[in-house]
C-alpha cells in the first residue's frame, strides 16, 4: 500500500520531469546548433537530403561491417560538428543500447542455429544466428539514432521544419509543422504550470484513484484550452489578412560547401548500398 502510494504520489513530479526534460532537450539542441561545426554550416535542406539516405541505407544493409562503417562515419561527423561524444553516449547510445539490448537479449537463446556457448547453471544455449540477429538490431538502431540526432542537434528546429519542403511536402503541412512546434512549448508550459500549481496545493498524499482523476482532468483542461487557443490563433491570423493561402520565406542559400558535402554523402550512401546488398 505504501509502495503504491509512494509511486502514485510521484506522478505529478514525473509528469513535471517529462515536461522539463523536453524543454531542456530543446534548449540544448538550440545551443549546439549555434556552434561552429561541419553540420552547422550546411544548408538545412542539404542536411536532410544528405542524412536521410544514410538512415535508409543503414536499414537496408545486410552486412554488419557496412553498418559498422556507417556508425563510425556518424561518430566522425559528430566530432567534426563539435557534438560532445560524452553527451551522445549518455543521451543516445546508452539509451538505445539498453532498450534494444533488452529487447534483443532473448533472441540470443530463442533463435535456432549453431550453438556457440552454453550458459553455466541455466544451461541455455547461445546460437551464432541469435548473436548475429541481436548485433544487427543493436547496430542498426544505434546508427540510425546517431544520424537522426545529428540532424536535429545541429540545426535550429524551426529551420529544419522549413527545410522539409525539400521532401516535397505540401507547403501547408510545412507551415502546420512549424506552428505545431511553436505551440508544443506553449502547451508544455501550460501543462507544467497546471502540475506545479497542483503540487503547490498538495499537503497530503492522494491515493491512486484521486491521482488518476487529477491527471485525466488536467488532460481535459488542456484539450479545452487547446481548442480555445486554436480559435484565438485563427482570429489573430484572420485579423492579419489570412485567407487560407500560406507562404514561407525561403531564406536558405546553398554554397559550394553544401554541394561538396551532398556529393560526398550521396557517394557514401551509394557505396554502402552496393557493399551492403
Amino acid at each position, binding site marked *: 500500500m505504501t509502495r503504491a502510494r509512494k509511486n502514485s504520489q510521484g506522478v505529478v513530479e514525473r509528469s513535471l520531469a517529462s515536461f522539463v526534460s523536453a524543454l531542456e532537450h530543446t534548449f540544448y539542441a538550440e545551443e549546439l546548433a549555434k556552434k561552429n561545426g561541419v553540420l552547422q554550416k550546411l544548408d538545412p535542406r542539404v542536411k536532410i537530403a544528405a542524412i*536521410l539516405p544514410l538512415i535508409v541505407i543503414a536499414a537496408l544493409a545486410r552486412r554488419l561491417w557496412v553498418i559498422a562503417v556507417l556508425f563510425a562515419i556518424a561518430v566522425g561527423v559528430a566530432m567534426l560538428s563539435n557534438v560532445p561524444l560524452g553527451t551522445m553516449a549518455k543521451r543516445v547510445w546508452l539509451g538505445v543500447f539498453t532498450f534494444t539490448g533488452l529487447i534483443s537479449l532473448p533472441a540470443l537463446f530463442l533463435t535456432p542455429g549453431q550453438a556457440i556457448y552454453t550458459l553455466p547453471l541455466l544451461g541455455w544455449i547461445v546460437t551464432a544466428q541469435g*548473436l548475429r*540477429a541481436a548485433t544487427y538490431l543493436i547496430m542498426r538502431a544505434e546508427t540510425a539514432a546517431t544520424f537522426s540526432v545529428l540532424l536535429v542537434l545541429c540545426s535550429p528546429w524551426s529551420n529544419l521544419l522549413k527545410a522539409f519542403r525539400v521532401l516535397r511536402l505540401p507547403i501547408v503541412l510545412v507551415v502546420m509543422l512549424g506552428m505545431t*512546434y511553436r505551440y508544443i512549448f506553449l502547451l*508544455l508550459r501550460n501543462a507544467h504550470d497546471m502540475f506545479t500549481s497542483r503540487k503547490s496545493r498538495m499537503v497530503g498524499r492522494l491515493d491512486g484513484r484521486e491521482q488518476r482523476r487529477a491527471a485525466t482532468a488536467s488532460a481535459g483542461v488542456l484539450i479545452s484550452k487547446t481548442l480555445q487557443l486554436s480559435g484565438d490563433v485563427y482570429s489573430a491570423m484572420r485579423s492579419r489578412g489570412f485567407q487560407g493561402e500560406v507562404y514561407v520565406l525561403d531564406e536558405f542559400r546553398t554554397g559550394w560547401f553544401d554541394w561538396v558535402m551532398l556529393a560526398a554523402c550521396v557517394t557514401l550512401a551509394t557505396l554502402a548500398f552496393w557493399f551492403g546488398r
Partner: protein
Amino acid sequence: MHIPDGYLSASTCAVLYGAAVPFWYVAFARVKRLLNTRLVPLLAVVSAFCFVIMMFNVPLPGGTTGHAVGVGAATVVLGPWASMLSVSIALLIQAVFFGDGGITTLGANCFNMAIVGSLVAHLVYRAVAGRTAITSSRRVWAAASAGYAAINVAALFTACELGIQPVFFKDASGAPLYAPYALHIAIPAMMLGHLSFAGLAELFVSGGVVAYLQRTNPALLGQNASAGTDDAARPPAATTGWRITRPLWSRLALLMLLTPLGILAAGRAWGEWGAKDFSDPKVRQQITAASGNIAPPSQEPQGLARLSSLWSAPFPQYAPRFVRRPAFGYVMSAVFGSGLILGFFLVIAWIAGTRGAEASKTST
C-alpha cells in the same frame, strides 16, 4: 509501441508508408473541406496537444504508471480524420526531434497508432455510445473502451509487423536481419503489456477526458472536427450520411468493373491449390516452378483432400455455374459479395438505430 529505426526492413517501411498515404490524403481532403481556413491553426494546435498528452504520466492500478497516446480522446473530440492527421504530426515531431520512434518506421508508427487507432476508436465509440445524450455516462464508457480497443488493435498491428520480419528477412547464415521474434512470440509479448497496462492508460485518459468535458464543456463533445465552424450547426446526418460516402460508391462500382483483371494473371496463386491440382501435370509444373524447383508431393495431401470436400462454394472460381463468360462471373461475384457486406451492415445499422431511438425516448 513506437517502433525505432532498424526494427523493420526497408520494404516493410515502404509498404506501410504506401498504406498510410491514401488515408492521409483522404483525411486531409475531408478535414480541409470541413474546416476550410481553420484547418491550419486547429490541426497545428491539436497536434501540439497530442504531443503533450503523450508525456502525461497516468497512475495505473498496482502502483505503476503509464503513458497514453491520446488517440481515443482526440478521436472523440475531433473525429477520426482530424485525429489521424493530428496524431501523425505529433508522431513526426516525436520521431524527428525527440527520437521517440524511427524516421524510416514513421509510416508504420503513423499507420498503427494514428490511422488504425483513430478508425478503431471511432468505430468502437460510435458502436458503444449509440445515439445517447452527450452527457450520458454511457459515453464515458464508450470513450474508455474506444481508447482501450484503439491502443490494443494498434499494438496487434505493431506485433504483426515485427513478427513477420524473421520470416522474410534473414542473412545467408539464417540470422534474422531485423526484429528477431516470430509472430508466436511477438504477439503475446506485445499484447500482454498492452492488454494489461498500456491499454489502461489510454482507457483512463479517454474516459477521463470525456467525463471532464461532460461536466465542464459538453459542447466540445458534439462538434467533432467542425468545432467552431458553420458546419457545427448542421445536423449530423448532413455531414456523415450519404453525402460523404457518395465518392466511395463510385469508386466501389469502378473496382467491381475492374475485378476481371484477375483473369489476366496466368496460373494459380501460390498456396491456393486445390486437391485435384496435385494430379494435374500442368499445374504440378507450375507449382514446381513457383516453389524454387521443389516438386509437390506426388499425391494430394490427405488432410487437404478431406477438408476440401467439407464445403463447396456457390460461386467456385468467382463464376456461378450458369455463367459462361468468366469476366461477367467476376463482376457478378463482386456485386454479390459487396451486396452481402452492405446488407449485413445495413441490418446492424438498423438494429443500432432502433435501439438508439428507444434509448433516447426513454431518456426524454
